[in-house]
């Protein structure tokens, strides 16, 4: 089998992997969620359903929110990926406005769904900084939150949408 190599850019850091079934290689069936969590130690995004239904594993790839459990790492060659760990300022550690809004509004209970919800919201606001409440709810329709933090989440994301510069 010809050795295939891929490059990922995760939170601004470049990673090169070889694809294959030998020790240390990425098997063709490995999901992006497994690569991020198990190889890169980026355990912020969670894996819960493993079948694209809950949004807990959401990360941003090339500007789009994607479910990393449904994405094969081999298909991500050359892609720029942002995870929840990449949101805070890398130098000062200061949280992003969206993260801060989630704290200010108490927009989580158990917090297991929160990284996925923040990443989906971030992708939305990057594209549409002035999103309306309806647009926020629609964008988050694939994110499961069983503690029912939805009401506070909408407030938190709306706060940031409301403050976005014209």
């Amino acid at each position: 089998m010809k050795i295939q190599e891929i490059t990922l850019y995760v939170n601004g850091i470049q990673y090169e992997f070889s694809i294959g079934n030998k020790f240390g290689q990425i098997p063709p069936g490995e999901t992006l969620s497994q690569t991020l969590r198990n190889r890169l130690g980026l355990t912020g995004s969670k894996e819960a359903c493993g079948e694209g239904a809950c949004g807990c594993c959401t990360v941003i790839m090339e500007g789009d929110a994607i479910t990393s459990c449904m994405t094969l790492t081999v298909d991500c060659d050359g892609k720029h990926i942002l995870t929840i760990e990449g949101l805070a300022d890398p130098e000062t550690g200061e949280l992003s406005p969206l993260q801060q809004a989630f704290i200010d509004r108490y927009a989580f209970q158990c917090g297991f769904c929160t990284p996925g919800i923040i990443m989906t919201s971030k992708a939305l606001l990057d594209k549409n900084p002035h999103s309306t409440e309806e647009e926020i709810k629609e964008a988050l329709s694939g994110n499961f939150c069983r503690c029912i933090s939805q009401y506070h989440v909408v407030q938190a994301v709306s706060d940031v949408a409301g403050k976005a510069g014209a």
Partner: protein
Amino acid sequence: MYSDDFKPENYRYVGKNAVPRKDAAAIVAGKATFLDDFSLPGMLIGYTLRSPHPHAMIQSIDVDDAKKMNGVMAVLTYRDVDQEWKMGWPPQKPILCRHLRYIGDPVALIAATDLETARAAAEKIQVEYEILPCVTDGMEAIKDGAPQLYEEFPNNVVTPGYPPFQKDGPFWHLIKGDPEKGFEECAYIAEDTVEFAKMPAPLAPEPPGAVVRWEGGDDFTVWGTSQSGYILKIINSSVIPNCNLDVHTFNVGGSYGNKQSLGYQVMSAALLSMRTGKPVKVFQTKVEQMTAFETRLGSQVHAKIGMDKDGVVKAVKAEWVVDTGAFCNATQGQVGVGIGEAQLVMAKCPNWDLDTNIVVTNKQPAGIVRGYGGQELNSCLFLLIGRTMQAGNFDPLECYKKNYVSDGDLYTWRDGRTWQAHSINYVKAMDAAAEKFGWKDKWKGWGVPTWVSEDGRKVRGVGCGIIGNADIGEDNTEAYVRIVPDLVGNKAHAVLQCNVTESGMGQRSNLVKMVADILNMPYEKVEITPADTGINPTGFGLCGSRGTITYGHAVSSAAEDVKKKLFDLAVPYLEVAADAMELRDYGVGCKARPDKFVTWKKLIMQDLTLTGYGQHIENFSTPNFFIVFLEVEVDKETGRVEVKKMVGGTDAGQVIDPLMIEMQCHGGIGSASLDTALYEEHIIDPATKRPLTYNMIEYKWRPFNNFPEYETSILESQFDTFQFKAVGLGEIAGAAAASATMQAISNAIGVSVSTYPATPDVILKALGKV
């Protein structure tokens, strides 16, 4: 909002959201640790091969090929496991067993270096099954001739009673007064068989799991996704004789009462760790969680309820069949609470005959989910209470006010003892919530819609439901508060030592607030120890909405104890009595003389610390309360029901955390509560008995863009409970939502609907359209 007799205290932290939760920054940054984010050197992965049949006997099992695979470290079957090591109460189910009792019952256990290898090994195991007849309905299971699940349970009826809860003997049958005579005095009587038996999924986002490391001998270290490490410890300690479990928990990704004892996860990892000598992680997939982990109990009730001409319930006779699936993990405790909660909503009723049977069936195990038996029974009984109210043409709100428990009423709680309600009265809270909802305008009478669209196709109706729980004072609990002078400078910090796992309620931070308030020191300078049964004093965790009263009491008492010790130590310095002293700026001062002051650092001997101790002793005398009002819209053409508006009301005593209590109310929409009236159910294929709702795509849940308008109505009073005068709330927020929804639907369409969930099919049938 305050009730009349409440004078708000101006605490520094309690009652405010002035500071974020201690773990807030970690959660939004993805740094909070959950079990699956944790790993140990040399850790193996455990995986379970499961039964494809609802009822079968293993005829032969060959694991040789699986064992030979590279990376496979152990394969266990029932032959490798002591059949006396039984789980459940009473002990009934070996960790691995030849007799398989539900689809998903463990057949073999594999430990391997990674999950893929373990799965591949499972496929190599050869099993021959003898297929047995099965029973999946609770009422069928108790009939003579029904397939038998356990030798110990004749007619599939589980031995009643749960000793840790019922020290005076088993309690499962409430008999009081003379029901027959009581019915004679009733003006309105309803009798029927009703059920809430679709056993919906609590569906915590994080699946259940555990990492176990056998330390040799009887010792095991456990890291679990349990909302209560201590409950995990006491329930599992009797499975492997003499085993000593040191239980740690991380942040838990939702539980809703469901992830507590984790018997199979812990015991399977323990077996594999003993066999391999390595730590083993067992973390279930979502499909395993939804098909083989505990779901909500099934409930079938034949009941007769009688009400007098004034709308007061005077007699109840009921037989409650509780379907606990293929495994009974102390379901007896839930039955006790269910009986208790029924009395709280019919607290003026002197005549009772409420009998119960817990039955086992060939379905996935059913166990604890928020609502704990009370919700399951309430969802049934309220269909009948509704019929008596309708017969008397009573406004339900007015009836609830007459029947709900208040100061002085007697009831039998889950311990089988009689308790008297103390210090509570919720009539004002009912009125306040009703006003917020606009009940007076919207209530048009039984079977009458509040609104009809012009073309008559869409109709709206309103309903309301109540529930309460006295478990909020349950279980003894203790805490230490230790003052530790800073090594540098003249300040100090405090360490709160108590066993509380964070599974979403923010309670760890709220307990810290209480300490900071009592010691009058900054929240940031108070730490709380990690949840760990080894280093912490006893604490049952945040089950039964008990966190506020029980931990609040123990923790506040510990803080007051250390405060008293500081005052005693300060006497020689300040030369005044303790009642003339106050705590300020990490020291003790004289109230009247600002200049008289001594630091804690000076009072506490060099390099030592000062510890206070506090405890809470179990007490069931202050039930909490929740009322939910809601309005639904029904499309009579499609049968679709939509909840348009909800108001959740309570009196919480002193509110500890305004935003979290609001979210606890919202939580009543999730975890198999409100939507059990609309679409949440486990559907089982009648032919194969396979669960068709086995994953999050097939199982219906409420998406983000489909939430009703929700308002809370939270009164504040001063209940005589503990230092901060509060009661706990969480668990009951959704427990009456399903029955209220049925009432609202029935009023909207003018036909009584009593089948959970009221799917379009049910509605169209009720309307005579299919």
